[in-house]
């Protein structure tokens, strides 16, 4: 028996400990987890540079490669955090029962998933940083402003982490995530300004594109990088933060019922 009264760790320390768990698991396979985020943009550059780039010289007033390079860091953040908080979370929830173990320690269900959203943000940050490094090395991303993609990558990762947790809270069968990926994320990749500007969309569809979370993340990266500043960016930032908070809140409420029975 201990001599002193045990103390409950503070919120920051509890969130950090959840984050630390994910970081330990992720960094356990450094090569297989750390190499693809660099390889992917390299492959993309080769494909676009050698092929597509010859047919499309410029887009929205900038070289096409630059246009793409100002969106790819955050789309990369989106996909990695979406995988983490769908398949990853589901496996921890249903197969490995990791949360059942962790919840016996002095952490709450809310801690578990806020920590997880922060981790999704961290992965987003890491993945966007990888893309930024590769794109900048090939001269496709204007510096220093292109670095803005890194913090926006964090926000994008956190937002899609929270949204994906909310999706996971509804999913009982792991195969159902296919609907989310092919029905939501893939279309979003194409209709959020990644490969062509939104103003080339029909006027009737444009408000729909503004509802896509990715649209705001891309604008927050591309516009400052290309030295285009406007008040819209503040609205984009507010959108990211708000969606993250609301989605995380709902996800925690729903996931709580799957863990505390």
């Amino acid at each position, binding site marked *: *028996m*201990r001599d002193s009264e*045990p*103390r*409950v*760790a503070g919120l920051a*320390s*509890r969130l*950090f*400990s*959840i984050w*630390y*768990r994910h970081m*330990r*698991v992720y960094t*356990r396979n450094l090569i297989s987890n750390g190499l693809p985020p660099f390889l992917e943009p390299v492959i993309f550059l080769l494909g676009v540079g050698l092929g597509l780039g010859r047919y499309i010289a410029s887009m929205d007033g900038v070289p096409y490669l630059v246009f793409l390079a100002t969106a790819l860091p955050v789309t990369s953040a989106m996909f990695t955090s979406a995988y983490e908080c769908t398949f990853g979370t589901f496996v921890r929830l249903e197969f*490995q*029962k*990791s949360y*059942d*173990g*962790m*919840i*016996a*320690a*002095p*952490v*709450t269900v809310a801690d578990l998933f806020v920590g997880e959203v922060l981790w999704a943000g961290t992965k987003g940050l890491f993945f966007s940083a990888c893309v930024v490094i590769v794109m900048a090395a090939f001269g496709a991303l204007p510096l220093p402003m292109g670095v803005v993609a890194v913090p926006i990558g964090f926000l994008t990762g956190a937002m899609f982490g929270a949204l994906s947790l909310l999706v996971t809270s509804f999913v009982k069968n792991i195969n159902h995530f296919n609907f989310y990926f092919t029905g939501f994320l893939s279309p979003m990749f194409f209709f959020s300004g990644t490969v062509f500007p939104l103003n080339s969309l029909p006027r009737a569809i444009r408000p729909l594109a503004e509802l896509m979370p990715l649209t705001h993340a891309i604008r927050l990266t591309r516009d400052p990088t290309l030295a285009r500043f406007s008040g819209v960016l503040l609205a984009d930032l507010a959108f990211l933060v708000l969606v993250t908070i609301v989605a995380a809140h709902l996800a925690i409420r729903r996931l709580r019922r799957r*863990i*505390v*029975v």
Partner: protein
Amino acid sequence: MSGPVIIFDNVHKSYRGVKAVDGISFDVPPSICFGLLGRNGAGKSTILRILYRKAERDSTPSSTVSVFGFDPERDELAIKCRSGVVPQEDNLDEELDVTQNLLVFAKLYGMPRPQAEARIAELLDFMELGEKHRANIRELSGGMKRRLVIVRALLNQPRLLILDEPTTGLDPQVRHSIWEKLRQLKRGGLTIMLTTHYMDEAFQLCDDVLIVEKGQAVLRGNPKALVEQHIERYVLELTEMTQAQQVLAQLSLSDARVERSDESLRIYAGDYGGLQRLSDQLAPGEHHLRPCTLEDVFLKATGRRLDARQ
């Protein structure tokens, strides 16, 4: 701390209309081992989960749960930092090795790294897992995993250890070794609360047991006292019915109690000599005269028939 560690008063818990816990009350004084006995689905695990808010009790106004004076629904963290939990499933992180699993939990408990490392080394030695400190979880045997989960539960020097079926599925050597460790911990002042359906385990470890049936408390007491007070001292068991009629015809003991099913006959009595004479007259075969155990008390209290939840 002199009052009870755990107070459970008139607690209810239903799952979609099914009562898993139906008005249970008990308390657990410090530094004892308290056992919950019951068949599968009797509500044992639910009771444990309510203690650390892995489950929430129904909001019946008259019901109270208190662990170290804290209500799990208001102060779950205060309870959890004083308790260690060994859940029914070994939910270890298979993506991490033995030491990393423990370091992650030390972090969850807010332990500084050097203190965590010292504690991990000490506990791995205590549970005889010292050589496995760098092993992958998949390389461990069932008994090692179980011991590792116990180490994990002891990291924060808890005052209460909650174990849900600590030795189910383990071989006798491992079971006895775990029992010895738990006894050692109890002598050190730890309060232990466990569930089991092994009556020998309850008899070996528990100072106090509560038999639970369909979410209700059926019988409570010290295992040895229960055997002395709630069952005859001996039983003659016939597991083949060919000689049953002969036995029943010759049965002349005054205090004998007969229990029969299609496949077996049991005669309970306090008079060993009488049962001995009865058994001597039987042809050699499927019959056996033995002292009654906690298992006999349990079966008498809860019935032999299977129920829908099993």
